[in-house]
């Protein structure tokens, strides 16, 4: 079990972060807060990918004659673009929140639902 703890701790960190983000998204009413939660969730996925690419004793994947072991460059590429795409979609979400707030006068999920039922 201790062995497991030492070799798999990265997944557990990812999992805890993911669940915190998940909780914020489903349990909290404020839409801005939900987006922050979604960002936490997203970052936990990034960490999962990057930690999967790590090789013990490896170095950053920039070629050099003195280095023979590199970490896996592929997850880096995927996550690099994912971060920038992530901020673009977050901005889109924030823009939607602003429009919602203008239409309903509130950024709380409950208020918006109540107004829709009326």
């Amino acid at each position, binding site marked *: 079990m201790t062995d497991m703890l030492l070799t798999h701790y990265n997944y557990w960190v990812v999992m805890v*972060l993911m669940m915190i983000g998940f909780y914020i998204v489903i349990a909290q009413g404020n839409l801005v807060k939900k987006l922050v939660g979604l960002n936490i969730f997203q970052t936990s996925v990034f960490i999962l990918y990057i930690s999967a690419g790590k090789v013990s004793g490896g170095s950053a994947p920039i070629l050099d004659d003195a280095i023979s072991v590199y970490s896996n460059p592929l*997850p880096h590429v995927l996550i690099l673009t994912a971060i920038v795409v992530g901020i673009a979609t977050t901005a889109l979400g924030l823009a939607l929140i602003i429009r919602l707030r203008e239409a309903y006068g509130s*950024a709380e999920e409950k208020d918006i639902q109540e107004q829709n039922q009326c």
Partner: protein
Amino acid sequence: MLVATAIGIAVNRDLLSVVMLSSIYGLLSANFFVTMDAVDVAFTEAAVGAGISPLLMFTTMAIVGRYEKLPHRWSLSALVLVSITGALLLVATMDMPAFGAPDAPAQQHVAPRYIEQSGQEVGIPNIVTSVLATYRGFDTFGEVTVIFTAGVGVLSLLMIGDRATKPLSSHLLKASQHKILRIVSKVLIAPILLFALYVQFHGDYGPGGGFQAGVIFAAAIIVYTMLFGLDSARQVIDQGWVRVMAAVGVLLYGAVGVVSMVNGGNFLDYDVLAKDPIHGQHYGIIVIELGVGITVAAVMVLIYFSFAGRLVDRGHQDD
């Protein structure tokens, strides 16, 4: 520390501190990426997670309001659902390979080829850049298009009913009254722009590239906008011109693909761009990275402008 910050975000009701914490969270995860050898990713995360994303959230907050309305309560059903999902994931991690194991499946497939061959095939030291621009050039093209589309989406959401330039509200002028902030940032803006260009063109050899450079470049312009107000920023950078640049970046990327097709290769096959395939690769990578950088910077600036523009309009209505 990451976990502690995340819990802080979950518990806090004041959105200002939530956003500040999320900025710290971004910086912490950037550090985490450095220890995982992902220097390029850390670069991006530091610029985006700790810089641009909190800025946009602040602007939204200024429009939407700072405090959550409802008193915070723990939702039991949500907590149960989260615990169950967490437990299932915990079971799933038992089957995963150990952290840092060189024989993990992720290390087996195409990664060794990228590491061993990219030096001869592409001829640039930064493997991340060569994979991004060459082997996965199609993917990157798609992602640039996604960013462009998101920019168009934000514009179409926030530009509805856009009126002509209005006198600036006191909202955005506040920062310019802080003398120290103004002078320090004035000194900083030029080096930030210069650094962005360095990151852009040095991406072949060290960590960096179009995505990071675009974000850093946009950050410098956003700092300027925050200090001197939207109107003076619009005087320096015409918004219509930025819109055109966002499209130019994507087109530049696509054009490289078309040119390589005209020269008898496949779409985005840079070998045919010059007589020597290695030189062709270099030209191709520099041009598409430039395209990526232009689009990313232009879209980020556009998004910030339209958010700040909303703020000015609102401040005007409230008066």
